[in-house]
């Protein structure tokens, strides 16, 4: 019983950090601070994945999201010198309207999830007896058997994205 309560307390602290960092990302004036808040948010979500018994996804989250993607973001922010934009608000009322609509969206999403999807039951974190290596090996097996076609399509998608990015930033040659 004590351990169960401890797990809940741990969840609540992490949830608080996740929401705070998301709000920090949303509200900070400087884009670099936003990016750093988002890194912290991604790391917190990675800890959630560990609690949910998904060690491989947690590590992928840290390396791909918090590592690669956010470094790319920070690089572009500093390359463009776009840390802070001058505050020009074309539609001053739009912020309040968006806030109201977002509150409606949050209530609606929570309501639909809780009433329609009926996610009954409780989540327990896997205990230390679960073998992480076997877990990841099984994940790899599934990826290369049952999900082979989506996996190959993903590799083509990454190739297309890479070519697309190169073509976009390439210098145009004048053709006469």
């Amino acid at each position, binding site marked *: 019983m004590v351990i169960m309560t401890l797990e809940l307390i741990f969840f609540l602290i992490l949830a608080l950090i996740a929401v705070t960092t998301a709000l920090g*990302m*949303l509200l900070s004036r400087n884009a670099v601070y936003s990016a750093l808040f988002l890194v912290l948010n991604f790391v917190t979500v990675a800890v959630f994945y560990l609690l949910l018994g998904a060690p491989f996804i947690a590590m992928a989250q840290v390396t791909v999201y918090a590592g690669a993607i956010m470094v790319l973001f920070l690089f572009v*922010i500093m390359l463009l010198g776009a840390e802070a934009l001058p505050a020009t608000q074309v539609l001053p009322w739009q912020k309040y309207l968006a806030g109201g609509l977002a509150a409606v969206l949050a209530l609606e999403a929570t309501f639909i999830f809780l009433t329609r999807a009926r996610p009954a039951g409780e989540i327990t974190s896997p205990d230390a007896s679960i073998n992480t290596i076997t877990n990841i090996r099984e994940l790899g097996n599934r990826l290369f058997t049952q999900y082979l076609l989506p996996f190959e399509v993903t590799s083509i998608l990454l190739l297309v994205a890479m070519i697309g990015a190169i073509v976009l*930033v390439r210098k145009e040659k004048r053709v006469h």
Partner: protein
Amino acid sequence: MVPVNYYIILSAILFTIGALGVLIRRNALIIFMSVELMLNAANLAFVAFARAHEVASGEPFFDGQIFVFFVIAVAAAEVAVGLALIVEIFKSKRSIDVDQISSMKG
């Protein structure tokens, strides 16, 4: 024990903050980061449902995790192309304020 509902509510809150970021921020880079936050919230719901299924059935269940793996791969591809587009827009407009990008306004 943590009820699945708590994870789902957390996911909904994170998604809403992301949507709010897309609506109220004018910096194209921060709008893009908010999109990443929304993808992340969806991933959290995926893994939470997968774990709930695992706990309920007592057998390992990997499909949710594999979906999250694909979402992460797609997000990486999306970021590469999106940031290239933002750099191009900055080159031609000297700004990434989305209010300034209104050439097609009637």
